């Protein structure tokens, strides 16, 4: 007699969920607050680690004098300890109309769910913002943390609807107006925009957010098989453009596509961020536990 196993969430298979729970995000730069020992208590954080020495000045807590150095140098030096500040994980999920093609949004949502689980299970403050719908209508999930927030987190993601034409760079400004806290920003988008992505990256980096940019493209966008004379219609703006002998332009298209990838990767790198391009055909497990894991985005 088979026993039906219920999915915890429709977004992720249970095995992926179980594995994601045990993993954590691995940012390149951990934002820390240096504090003297007297500020340690009450400040929160999950670990204390030695950071540096400084000269002892009257009034410092003598418990943190390094007596070994004093014995050698006959001079008092104070040990400094650091503690991790709480990390924010802001997930920016592009839900504009362009993401509706070829399962891009579904994969983006699954990745958002997986990375969000990692953040929540490691007591990081996870928030989700959507790009696409403009203005105050854009739904977002306020920062939440811990296992107790999983249900609310998954429920939010499951209810996001695709639509809208607000480009991602414009959405970033809106997000930053609503978000505070340093940490990681996970950008899940196709990045097919006319706007300046570099400026958006600047804003994010300047806000203390390390950029995890994942470009998701459909197979028809990665390798279009088009011939003849066509009239392209933009799904978001409904603008059209006539193209003759499309087949002849495919080489140029690929050149531009590769150029976009290189540009995004360079922009992310310049801001100590990360960039990855995947196909909406890729398997979720392959993306998470092979690509992201090998690139040390997660551990």
């Amino acid at each position, binding site marked *: 007699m088979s026993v039906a196993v219920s999915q915890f969430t429709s977004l992720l298979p249970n095995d992926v969920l179980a594995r994601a729970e045990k993993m954590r995000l691995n940012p390149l730069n951990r934002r820390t607050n240096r504090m003297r020992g007297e500020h340690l208590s009450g400040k929160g954080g999950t670990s204390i680690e030695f950071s540096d020495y400084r000269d002892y000045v009257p009034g410092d807590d003598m418990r943190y004098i390094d007596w070994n150095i004093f014995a050698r140098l006959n001079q008092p030096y104070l040990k400094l300890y650091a503690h991790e500040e709480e990390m924010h994980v802001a997930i920016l999920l592009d839900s504009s109309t362009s993401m509706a093609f070829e399962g891009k949004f579904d994969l983006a949502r699954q990745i958002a769910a997986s990375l969000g689980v990692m953040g929540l299970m490691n007591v990081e403050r996870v928030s989700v913002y959507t790009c696409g719908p403009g203005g105050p209508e854009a739904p977002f999930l306020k920062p939440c943390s811990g296992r107790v927030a999983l249900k609310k987190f998954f429920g939010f993601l499951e209810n996001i609807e695709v639509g809208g034409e607000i480009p991602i760079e414009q959405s970033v400004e809106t997000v930053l107006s609503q978000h505070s806290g340093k940490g990681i920003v996970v950008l899940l988008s196709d990045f097919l925009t006319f706007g300046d992505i570099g400026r958006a990256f600047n804003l994010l980096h300047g806000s203390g957010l390390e950029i995890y940019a994942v470009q998701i493209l459909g197979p028809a966008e990665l390798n279009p098989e088009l011939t003849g004379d066509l009239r*392209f219609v933009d799904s978001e703006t409904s603008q059209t*453009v006539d193209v003759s002998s499309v087949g002849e332009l495919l080489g140029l298209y690929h050149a531009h596509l590769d150029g976009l990838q290189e540009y995004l990767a360079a922009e992310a790198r310049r801001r100590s961020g990360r960039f990855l391009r995947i196909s909406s055909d890729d398997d979720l497990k392959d993306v998470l536990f092979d690509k992201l894991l090998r690139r040390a985005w997660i551990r």
Partner: protein
Amino acid sequence: MNWIPSFFRPSYAWLFALLIPVVVFYFLKMRRTRLEISSLALWRQVINDQRVNAPFQKFKRNILLYLQLLLLTLLALAAMQPFIPGASARQQYLPIIIDCSASMGAVDADGTSRLDLAKEQISDIVEGLLPGQQLTLISVGATTRRLTEFTDNKPLLRDALEDLRVDDVPSRVADGLRLAQALSRTHNIERVRLYSDGNLPTKPNPATGFPMAEIDFDLTFPVDFFQIDPVRNNIGITAFNARRSSADEWDVFVRVESAVDAGSEAEVIMSANGEVMGSDQVILNAGESQRLVFSVDATIDQNLEVELRPRGTDALKADNTAWLNLPRGRQLTVFCPKKLRTFRHAFQALEGALVEPNEDGEAFQKEYDLVVSDKLEDVDQPSAVSLFIGMVPEKLRDQLTVEEENSEVVDWMRDAQILQHVMLKDVVISQLPKKQQGVEDNEIEQAGFEIIAHGTQGPLILKQRDGISVKYYFLFHTDKSTLPYRVGFPVICSNLISEAMQLASLSEIRAPATGVLPELSFDKNEAVRVTNPLGKHDERTTNDDGILAGVPAPSVGQYEIRAGGELKTKVGVGLLNPEETSLLAVDKLYFNELSVDAEIEQLDTDKPLWPMLAAVGFFVLLFEWWYFQKKPAGIPD
């Protein structure tokens, strides 16, 4: 050559009108399909980039249209059948005469014969035939024959050309020209082409002394003579004959000649009845000849074969072998009645003649080589040579009478064999052979008689050929003339004996040459099979006299004659032609009223262009298929 093409079917230019619907349909087809994509962001950049190379892109955008227009243009042009006009005027009917004589079988260092070269040149003409043009091929060899009717069927012409072979016979170009002339009565023939190496029968030019080829033919159309490059090195047998030197021996003569332009050396090997009986070496300079003599036993039948083994290059193999059959020696049998004493006396004085009936009146021979008689019943007696005295042939009894009046010899043929070295002037004859009124000499000739001596009112001596035998008629009786008392009378008898010995092959024999087999004697109306050196059979029947005649012998080699399945005899024929062996080539032909020079360069035929256009069109089609099937550049694998 004028490189501006002409068109054989300009009416097909209407096909260019199809270009219009091609263009119309192409642009009608350019309705664009709407395709919703996620974002125009990338495509706009692509199009902006493309616009930088606008002029070239405009071409590439419509390349399909351009290719289709090009293809249609090529097809329309091909249908119009363009051609580059040749130097020669285009003729509707073109007879081509091909010399297939022995010298056309001469090969050069790589084994290519003159006939092969002629075939190559004629093949080009066949391939370049334009619609409306027709060729006929005439080969001139052992016989002159048309290989094809006037036709433009290229496979037929090619096959006929391919089957052409060399005949080991001398050139007879005039026969080909006569055939072409006969064709001109039914077809509009403007010119005739002749392909030959120029090795034709020649005689010395009276003015210059150089050999010139005279062709007895009245040209009624221009002849373009295309001379095939002759070859030089050759040595061959040009004569092979035997003469009785004594009752027991033949002297066999072999003449070997080299080509006019190159010397040669060779070994000559003589075989008798299949066994080598002698050999000799010859070394000749250009144009030289040498005569070799061998002695052969005459007491038995001898089948001789002479073979030439050249050292070094030998262009012509056909002249390297010859055959000669020598009969066993015997006396010449002569029938002469005792009444004709003057003749018997003259014959008995000559060596090698057995005259019957003998003095006792006995006659033992069933057949005689020479019959001399004044009796009518002896006319039908078979013999090689016959002399009838005081007798008018039965066929001419209505045309001629003999009256008892005096006559004299007015003129005679000094080169007639019986009258060689004979002076008939002042011979008094007391009989007068007379033509009936209204009878002309040509009537007598048309009856088959040759007048070799003329009297005052009619012929005196007649000659008739009857197959291989010869009959002479002295219309007057020699006893009624002063002829027996003249010095010429024994000379006449000696000439008779010589001719009889020749015809009986008792004194001098020449090896048969290619062309026609010598006449052979078998049973009357007997069926025989002649097998030629190539193994082909020819079924024949002897005539009422048992003579087998007119058997073609175009190839050098031995011909076997069988009757009733039994091998009767073998006859070998050789080329034996000094002109063919010399490979002397002339570049000018002298006809009866004008001469024709060999063309210095090949006349360019019209060159059709449609095959090239069709091929280009095919490759355009292949390119169009490849271009639109290939993966555009820049697309990653």
